[in-house]
């Protein structure tokens, strides 16, 4: 149900439509070590705007989604960015989630969830810290846990005045790949 050419390192040239060789080499599920060897540490894998995935997406590195993902996304220890072009119709779990595009589904952020001004979210959010920028669209519920959030209020206020997306956190270990299962 998904196109194996979906996962490519950010900044890498987009492959030609008929060129499958380069992109399959970067697919985490089938060969992460070789594929990610050329990617600088800290860069997020990207699902490009023309890509559609249906199924279960999981992994152990940061990921940016610019395409369409339906199903579920699980990046328990990593950062997930839904880019401006990204459309995710799935339940999502990640360490931190930043949304600039569209999300239809529930979100669990182990640390925080940020909805940027271009973001459009319909679903329920559970996270110690939730930040929403002016202009962002949100319909759903937010589970507030002040004890877990700690100094959340001051952090979220800082976030609301920042328009640029946060840089993905650098992983301690080299990237291990992103797995997509139909």
């Amino acid at each position: 149900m998904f196109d194996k050419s979906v996962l490519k390192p950010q900044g890498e040239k987009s492959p030609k439509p008929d060129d499958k060789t380069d992109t399959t080499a970067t697919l985490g599920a089938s060969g992460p070590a070789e594929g990610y060897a050329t990617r600088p540490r800290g860069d997020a894998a990207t699902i490009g705007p023309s890509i559609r995935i249906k199924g279960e997406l999981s992994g152990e590195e940061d990921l940016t989604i610019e395409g369409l993902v339906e199903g579920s996304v699980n990046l328990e220890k990593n950062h997930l960015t839904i880019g401006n072009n990204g459309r995710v119709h799935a339940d999502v779990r990640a360490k931190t989630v930043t949304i600039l595009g569209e999300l239809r589904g529930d979100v669990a952020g182990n640390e925080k969830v940020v909805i940027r001004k271009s973001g459009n979210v319909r679903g329920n959010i559970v996270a110690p810290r939730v930040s929403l920028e002016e202009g962002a669209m949100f319909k759903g519920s937010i589970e507030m846990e002040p004890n877990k959030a700690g100094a959340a209020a001051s952090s979220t206020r800082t976030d609301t005045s920042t328009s640029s997306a946060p840089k993905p956190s650098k992983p301690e270990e080299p990237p291990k790949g992103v797995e997509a299962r139909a």
Partner: protein
Amino acid sequence: MASSRAGARRFGAPSSLANETSSPLFRSLLDRMDEHRRYEILDLGAATPSNIDFFARYHCRLHIADCLNQLVALKSGEETTETQIRQRVKGMLPPHEDLRFDVVLAWDVLNYLDKPVLRALMEDLATSVDRDTQLHAYVYPRQTMPIRPSRFRIFPDGGLHIEPGSQELCPSPCYRQPELEKMMPNLVVKRSVLLKNGIQEYLFRGK
């Protein structure tokens, strides 16, 4: 008041605070909220950064319905029966059959909805309202009001800033208390205060 101004700057509110209101009933509602208790809060308006920040201090689930504009656009008429209105209103609200709301923020809702739409909304919410539920709202008691609903922002100290949706005015329904209670049969006015800016502040509670 000083901290309210600081809040306005922090959240990018307009420099003019002419529309800031002390909202004593809203403050009294907040004063009774216990930081150790869990609350179910329903905001019928759009998501606002400052309001999310504010409620983050409470152990609560904040339901943001973001349905005010849709409700305002929903008009009763020959082509829209009351049954259709009820169905459409139900579809605009988050699922709440198993919930009981402690607080409902209905800030501009009573001013802009057609009567059948308002009745349908209150009928739908009735399943999640009991004696401990409090509904906070503003009503324009004068002849005119802004042509579009306002934005409401809670300052960190609990003050509220009302940002008119438009400088253009339109006729206001000028609802009085008995009329409101008739349209909201599961709620009763707990307190009502006329604010300095001419807006009537209402705090309802469930029956």
